[in-house]
């Protein structure tokens, strides 16, 4: 990142310098008069001073630019970090008991966090996907996953989030996080997953 930035900075500086040089012929037309060498020398000196002044001005401008750019990049990175943080908060899953679709007490804090994020980011739309373990009936699990996704949606909606911002789907038992056949895996697989449908580009941390 730093190499890229310095490369960009170097490119920028040269670009400005070239632009400044390009302007020189305008300010100092090049009369090819060879009459008076003293006058010519004086003019040449004046020219070089002017050029040097122009050069340093350009350099200062480039410096200021680069500082501004670096600051912008810093704050963008900070925003991105915040965005990442918000995204990971948003993606935190909630889990369910066997054959149950009620939001568990401990998971309410996770949903409260999502409410705050949704309130702070009015353009954000999310999808909630309900998932089941492999123990129940395969087709029944599509209905159970639907109930799990809608349990979370209901919680968000009753806390003031517009229902139109939340889409629900059910994966049934078709997308296990852990393919093992034991209690640990089943507990992991009975879950709601949260993903961003739209408005996730510039997330603001609540």
């Amino acid at each position, binding site marked *: 990142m730093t190499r890229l930035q310095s490369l960009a900075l170097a490119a920028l500086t040269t670009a400005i310098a070239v632009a400044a040089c390009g302007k020189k012929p305008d300010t100092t037309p090049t009369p090819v008069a060879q009459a008076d060498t003293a006058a010519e020398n004086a003019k040449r000196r004046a020219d070089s001073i002017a050029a040097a002044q122009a050069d340093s001005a350009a350099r200062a401008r480039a410096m200021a630019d680069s500082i501004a750019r670096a600051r912008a990049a810093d704050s963008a990175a900070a925003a991105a970090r915040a965005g990442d943080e918000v995204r990971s908060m948003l993606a935190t899953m909630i889990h369910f008991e066997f054959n149950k679709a009620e939001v568990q007490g401990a998971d309410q804090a996770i949903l409260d966090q999502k409410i705050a994020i949704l309130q702070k980011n009015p353009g954000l739309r999310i999808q909630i996907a309900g998932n089941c373990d492999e123990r129940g*009936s395969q087709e*029944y699990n599509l209905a159970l996953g639907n109930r799990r996704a809608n349990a979370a949606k209901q919680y968000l909606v009753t806390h003031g989030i517009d229902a139109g911002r939340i889409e629900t789907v059910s994966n049934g038992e078709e997308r296990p996080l852990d393919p093992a056949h034991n209690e640990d895996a089943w507990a992991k697989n009975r879950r709601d997953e949260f993903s961003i449908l739209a408005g996730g580009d510039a997330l603001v941390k609540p």
Partner: protein
Amino acid sequence: MKTVRRLDGKTVGVIVLTVSTVVPSYRLWSQDSTIDKGVRIGITYRPGVRPGLVVLPTAPGQLDSVRAIVGRDLDFSDRYEVITLPGGDSLDPGPSVPAGGHTATKSISGLNYSLYQALGADFAVQFRTVGDSVLLLLHDVAAGAVRRTFSTRLTAPGDPGYRMAIHRLADQVVQASLGAPGNAATRILFVKDKHVYSVDQDGANFHLVSSATKEALSPAWSPDGKKIAYMEFNGGHGQINLLDLATGKRSVVYGSTGKYSDFTPAFSPDGKTVAFSRATEEGTDLWTVNYRDACCLQRLTVGRYSDNLSPTYSPDGRRIAFVSTRPGLAQIYVMGADGTDQQLFAPFDYGVTGSSNAPDWSPDGLSVAFHRDVGGTLQVFVLDVRKGTVKQLTSVGRNEDPTWAPDSRHLAFVSDRAGYRQLWIIDLETGRIRPLLQQSGERLPAWSPRLPEAASATP
């Protein structure tokens, strides 16, 4: 509290009584006492109940493979004692010269009827070729004569319709000898790795039928065997897809917009309607749609946060059995095909019986097969529709998703009894059980009706 307990006790008593009286216990033991594939197990076939049948050998070559297919079909029908000739298949059945004294029973076809009769055969099946056709002669051994002759034109063995044409010969034998339709010309759809596959009932012709790129579940046959419906995931939402087997054309069922999650399709017996489950914010409910005229999307259940799914029509089309979670756990319910008169179908013991799912109404209308949670695993049960009683069919391993064969006596289901989940076929009359395919991960089987000629081509 007191009443509930008394009620429970009473119900338990009734169920236990039913199980022990309705099912001869040997059947329960016997079908589970084996995990061998396709092997007859030590159950008592009452002699004389099943007619003996001998499939006569042919010369090596194409006719021999026809004979092998028909012989296996007749064996898998579980309707005959299939008799092996002394000396096995090497015995030349040709114009045999029976020992003196038996000449009276020797027919013009030259078969040694008296020998077959002595071996217990009631029927003998013989093959001949005439031009590009194969001729099947069904002999009545006791009468010493050919009862019926069937023929079919044979295409190249690799041809899509080749095996189906031969399976039809086997079904004709069953029909002509016993007056009952057979299962040979049928296929079974199932799900494996989230795709729908098809396989012939004898395990041959395994092929993909759903889209190679999209995930699919819950295949169902149209009553004429020409179409299938299945659920396909589309951007996370289930949609009901139709596939025309003859043309290979796919379409989405009218009304299945992809806005909701639609799943578990089932065709009505008149082939006009598709019933399916739709998951919304309120839960899952049953809907029907006239898919042919693209109209009349109708909601049949109003679950109010309960789930109603997995519809299956009675063969007269008047009723629909389905799964409902209205009693708290999923159980088997029934209603009129228009959604009226919803009531419990398969009795259960409240607070004791586990979830019941995946009902399939038998083609003869007498039974509904389903699976039920028994002690944390699933077992196949059969509801007697007239008596309103249930009996447990399986007890070894996890057994689920039963589907009836057209003869209403065979069921295909998923079982892990041999170590991994695969499809098995059980004959409810004899208790004989065999794996359909030696592959793992198969789910949600759907047994076809008897397939018409046109749909026999591989889609």
